[in-house]
């Protein structure tokens, strides 16, 4: 009986707290809009022609990005996860880096690069600039999702197919249907990410629905319209969420497996050079060129720009790391708890809340948090870094939840039951059995949340409290008013910090995964 009560408390009380902290702001936004009858014209104007045009345009841009990135990800996924190729570890790591670096850094880099190459980058300040940067930033996500799905296909399925049909046909008839859900997931996720991203369209001066909401809210102070538009975007994302319910619940890329793969790998000896060339081309476009361009543009000024950039960025670096670290600890803890209550106690509420705040565009989440917490009584949250931590939790809690949840699903219940029969208390089973087995998943969730929190811009721009200096915000806000070389230098510092941290995490991860490889 006592055990049941404890399980009930563990499951329900934090759920309520999470609902009050993150769920209620979204509901309050909706209610505020519904009951606000003062300005009917503003309320209705959000469904005008202009709005519909912007929605259509945003969906078209994001749709193209999702298509291109998913296609590139499928090709790379196949090469890296299904072929016996030298240096696959290096390629996987290097091609994943763009995903871990804030999209606007790439926007700055490519803008610099085109200027350096052609002396003119005007053409880049358009929809095509957004499509190029988003595709290059998001295709690694598709590669990861589809690659994971490919590596989970049992070798025997393909071998049985190869006994009766040629290789090409086997890929089409057996492999492709088996990874169909992974392809759908990547398409949907990239669509949502691209639709939600505020930084790249804003940087290139491209009007999308997300930038429009930001402008209405922050520049024109037209709150009813901004809220109305936010609701509309919320509805679009909720519709996409329905698709998630079908496909994303067991998304393979959110898993960290400590077991070896049983999938079939192909050699294609004669085409190895071609595949290496293809991977290098992508690597150059997605990583080498942007970094090189950024460096070159920084050096076109003088070394003084670097000094100035460091003076400007110095305090922001430490504060960014500190806040990202606090946010990540919160995200990982909530991720662990919410995964546990979903997988073991069948409480789905925290999952739904985290999914909702994850797919809602940053601008909408930011507005919801501001409207909810901007009260004198809640100033201890609104006026401090706590609001940022909540924003990070809202944006990335779902990722941690899924990584840890899938890790937990890999732990057979019988491991817990074996201890239960022996009379080991529940808390000890959790601490001694579950936690050690979850370490790889916890680490992956921690690293991903940390890097993403460090580079988050969309919601941070809206909610960061006075006196807080953060790397992405600093670079973004200053870029319009300083020489381009200074912006590039600041971005390069931003990128270097991210790369150093990623390398450190990679080394720590290598050690950790080796230590916790049990299969």
């Amino acid at each position, binding site marked *: 009986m006592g055990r049941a009560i404890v399980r009930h408390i563990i499951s329900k009380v934090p759920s309520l707290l999470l609902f009050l902290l993150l769920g209620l702001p979204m509901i309050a936004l909706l209610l505020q809009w519904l009951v606000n009858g003062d300005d009917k014209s503003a309320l209705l104007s959000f469904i005008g022609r202009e709005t519909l045009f912007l929605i259509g345009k945003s969906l078209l841009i994001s749709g193209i990005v999702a298509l291109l990135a998913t296609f590139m990800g499928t090709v790379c996924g196949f090469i890296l996860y299904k072929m016996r190729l030298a240096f696959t570890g290096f390629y996987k790591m290097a091609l994943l880096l763009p995903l871990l670096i804030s999209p606007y850094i790439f926007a700055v880099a490519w803008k610099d690069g085109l200027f350096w190459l052609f002396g003119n980058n005007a053409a880049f300040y358009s929809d095509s600039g957004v499509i190029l940067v988003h595709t290059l930033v998001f295709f690694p996500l598709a590669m990861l999702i589809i690659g994971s799905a490919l590596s989970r296909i049992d070798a025997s399925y393909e071998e049985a197919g190869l006994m009766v049909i040629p290789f090409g046909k086997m890929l089409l008839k057996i492999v492709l249907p088996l990874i169909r859900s992974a392809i759908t997931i990547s398409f949907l996720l990239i669509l949502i990410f691209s639709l939600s991203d505020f930084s790249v369209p804003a940087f290139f001066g491209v009007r999308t629905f997300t930038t429009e909401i930001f402008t209405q809210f922050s520049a024109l102070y037209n709150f009813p319209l901004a809220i109305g538009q936010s609701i509309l975007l919320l509805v679009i994302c909720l519709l996409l969420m329905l698709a998630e319910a079908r496909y994303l619940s067991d998304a393979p890329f959110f898993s960290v497996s400590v077991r070896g793969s049983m999938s079939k790998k192909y050699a294609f000896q004669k085409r190895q050079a071609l595949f290496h060339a293809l991977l290098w081309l992508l690597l150059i476009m997605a990583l080498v060129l942007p970094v090189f361009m950024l460096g070159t543009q920084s050096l076109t000024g003088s070394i003084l720009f670097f000094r100035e950039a460091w003076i400007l960025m110095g305090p922001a670096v430490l504060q960014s790391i500190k806040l990202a670290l606090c946010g990540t600890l919160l995200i990982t803890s909530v991720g662990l708890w919410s995964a546990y209550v979903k997988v073991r106690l069948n409480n789905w509420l925290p999952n739904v809340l985290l999914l909702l705040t994850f797919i809602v565009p940053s601008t909408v989440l930011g507005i919801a948090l501001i409207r909810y917490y901007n009260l004198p009584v809640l100033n201890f949250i609104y006026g401090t870094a706590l609001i940022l931590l909540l924003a990070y939790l809202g944006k990335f809690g779902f990722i941690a939840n899924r990584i840890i949840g899938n890790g937990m699903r890999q732990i*057979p219940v019988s491991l817990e*039951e074996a*201890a239960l029969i022996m009379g080991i208390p529940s808390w000890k089973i959790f601490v*001694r059995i579950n936690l050690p087995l979850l370490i790889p998943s916890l680490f992956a969730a921690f690293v991903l949340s940390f890097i993403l929190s460090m580079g988050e811009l969309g919601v941070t721009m809206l909610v960061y409290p006075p006196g807080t200096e953060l790397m992405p915000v600093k670079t973004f806000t200053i870029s319009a008013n300083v020489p381009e070389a200074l912006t590039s230098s600041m971005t390069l510092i931003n990128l270097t910090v991210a790369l150093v941290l990623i390398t450190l995490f990679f080394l720590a991860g290598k050690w950790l995964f080796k230590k916790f490889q049990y299969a």
Partner: protein
Amino acid sequence: MPEIILEHITHCYGDKEVLNDFTYSFEQGKTTCLIGPSGCGKTTVLRLIAGLETPSSGVIKIDGVKVSEKGSILIPPHQRQVGFVFQDLALWPHFSVYKNIAFALADKKDTNIKNKVFEWLELFGISDKAKKYPHQLSGGQKQMVAIARSLILQPKILLMDEPLANIDTHLKERLLLHLKDIQRQQQFTMLYVTHDHKEAMNTGDCLVVMNAGRIEADGSKEEVSLSSSEFVKSFLKS
């Protein structure tokens, strides 16, 4: 006196009924083999006796004490003096062989843990594997660790859910003989689930043949082999 009694047990997983009015008494100190095709409810019987599942209806008694009844677990698993060898063995992958076996004793504040663990390891001839991790063991060695772990707390009942399914016949026979020896010394009741009727004939003192959540035949090997049930006849022939 019968040690384990299941009276009119019905059990459902969601809408699916896996046990239907199952009534049986398992005799003390004997080995009863539960046999039947996959999905007939054999594992569920073990899990109900262990207290890992709550019966949808009916009563379970161990040594005359009601341990489970409709919708509730009256005595939690660890107080039933039951050992369970799971089908997947459920060895904790992050613990060494020694730790896997000692873990339960450590929680009971036992002062003689090391000796007890090595006693069991020696009994199974795997004391040299004490520092190894489960993934470093062969299939047979893993089975021995799982059995040793389930016996270390000296249970009155040992529940075995097809634990020897994936090892070769020779090793299986050796392990079963070994287990029988231990059973004679420790005097525990053993319930052994298998879908292999030949293995059941060699292992069990009594047999229970199950089909679709019901008992088709039960009794001694001879009684079961003379059963008039068509299902039992075809199952034993297969």
